[in-house]
């Protein structure tokens, strides 16, 4: 699986899920309708998105996705076209939500992220875990091997459904 696309760089730490999708939009029954509200909680969110209308790769600061557990944040990013987020660190729940929605969370050192923020385009090879900024050398990264498998095929819920018998047996023997 290879993701290639324009980069949107928002070089700020601690972009929380309220800024990615404000709570007033958490009123749907399913994951639909979130993309149009992506980054609505950032004062300059609309302008940032308009500056890179076809961006697929988000490059941003540390602790991305902190705060609320709302999976709506991952849905909003995916529906807006993002396929990977590159940051020095992620909040735990956001990172789990990203994997569960095919949004590749790539953690790299701050200096590497700073450099990638200047790349107009990046190619991400999810399978080999190497990314290539336009005109630059390959940069290896590391994904959670199990959750990477959720992205490459199958998904989280089918994986868990496959564990049902094992869980029932474990509980019976508890």
């Amino acid at each position, binding site marked *: 699986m290879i993701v290639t696309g324009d980069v949107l760089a928002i070089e700020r730490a601690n972009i929380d899920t309220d*800024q990615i999708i404000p*709570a007033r939009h958490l009123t749907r029954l399913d994951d639909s309708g979130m993309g149009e509200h992506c980054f609505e909680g950032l004062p300059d969110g609309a302008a940032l998105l308009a500056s890179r209308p076809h961006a697929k790769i988000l490059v941003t600061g540390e602790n991305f996705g902190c705060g609320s557990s709302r999976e709506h944040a991952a849905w909003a990013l995916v529906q807006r076209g993002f396929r990977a987020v590159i940051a020095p660190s992620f909040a735990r729940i956001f990172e789990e939500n990203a994997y569960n929605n095919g949004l590749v969370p790539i953690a790299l050192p701050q200096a590497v992220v700073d450099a990638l923020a200047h790349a107009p385009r990046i190619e991400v090879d999810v399978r080999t875990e190497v990314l290539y900024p336009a005109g630059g050398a390959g940069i290896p990264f590391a994904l959670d091997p199990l959750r990477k498998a959720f992205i490459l095929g199958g998904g989280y819920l089918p994986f868990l459904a496959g*564990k049902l018998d*094992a869980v029932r047996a474990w509980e019976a023997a508890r």
Partner: protein
Amino acid sequence: MPPRSLFAKIWDAHVVEELPGGNALVFMDLVVAHEITTPPGALAIEKNFDDRLYDPRRIVAMIDHVAPAKDSATALQAQTVRTWAKRHGIVFHDIGDNGICHVIVPERGYVTPGMTVCCGDSHTCTLGAFGTFSLGIGSTAQAGAMLAGCLVLQRPKVMRVNVTGRLGNGATAKDLALTVIATIGFRGGTGHVLEYTGEAIDALTMEQRMTLCNMAIEAGATTGLIAADATTAAYLAETPLAPTGWRAEHADPGAVYDAEVTIDGSRIRPMVSWGTNPGECAPVDGAVPHDASAASLAYMDLRPGQLLAELTMDQAFIGSCTNARISDLRAAAEVFRGRRVSIPTIVTPGSQAVRRQAEREGLHDIFQDAGALWTHSSCGPCLGMSMGVLAPGMRCISSSNRNFPGRMGDGGRVHLAAPAVVAASAILGRIASPAELIREAVPA
């Protein structure tokens, strides 16, 4: 076996299977389901997995965030959870019997020490106060726990937060929570469980422990955790379910932690946040720090060195899963008694049971005599959904947990504090400690 932390004991007792990459399949004893984050997962299970749940008896559902519904969309969310719960025979707390999940679940006695609990809500860490491993997750992960009884989790590290001495000088669990975040940093707990120990923790009531654990997520932590003791047992015995048959686990002597921090509880003073994350806080009688981040200063319209007591407020809010239990309302009422608020003030109990108890004690009269609005239970304006959302530029002193930009409404500015500080600020119309009112009443 080497000596283990309390967290390690609970974790080890719930691992169904070790998985690749440091992950584990972890059994969940209880799934808490509310109307905002449950429908997507419930509908996915209905559509793709024949509507089969692992064990409906391990789910508790309620109307929580927006109670009652504020519009057709939130009504549909509530109705979806309502019919789903009924169809599966899931225990359900509808409006009238509702509350914020992190208030209602413990007050009814649904949690006991040693349990694992998850919910599609980041403040599920609140329940760590009962010696449980409780964590917030996304809707898909919650669906997985409802479908197969488990979460896939990376085993977190454990940070021991040892709080020595006793809280004094008017400091509360909220001030301790803010101090912990300021000490370890807004993301300092990421990848860790915060295991709280020490004399100050032992002395906390259950409601105070819930306030402390509630804000573990604000340091990025997976959850907070406090060993059960006689205080826990006494609290649980008074709940409607009065659960029995649980056993209190403790960390082994000599347990090794991945990180340790010690805080002197006796030095903590009433705190208030000045910035845009809960770690950006200072004593109420303090000032905006000189090394404050430019972005936070700009959003909050502050300058370095500015005295916090100079900041005038446009609204006060006492509520949320952090500070809306009966002891919080009592603390606020003590400040409000015989005084009048000078700014719009909203008091929202954490559950309908808390509301009824407050009314039995006459607290509702104290709030309303002071000129505050006394509401039914809801998450309210804490997350900018209803009942007191801010307009751009409005400044609100709040007993809630997040001061993120726009959290309580686009452009709104939130200052976090304990209920008594919020009450004192509501009376004086600016950031104030209750001690100032006492000084005012008794001139030297």
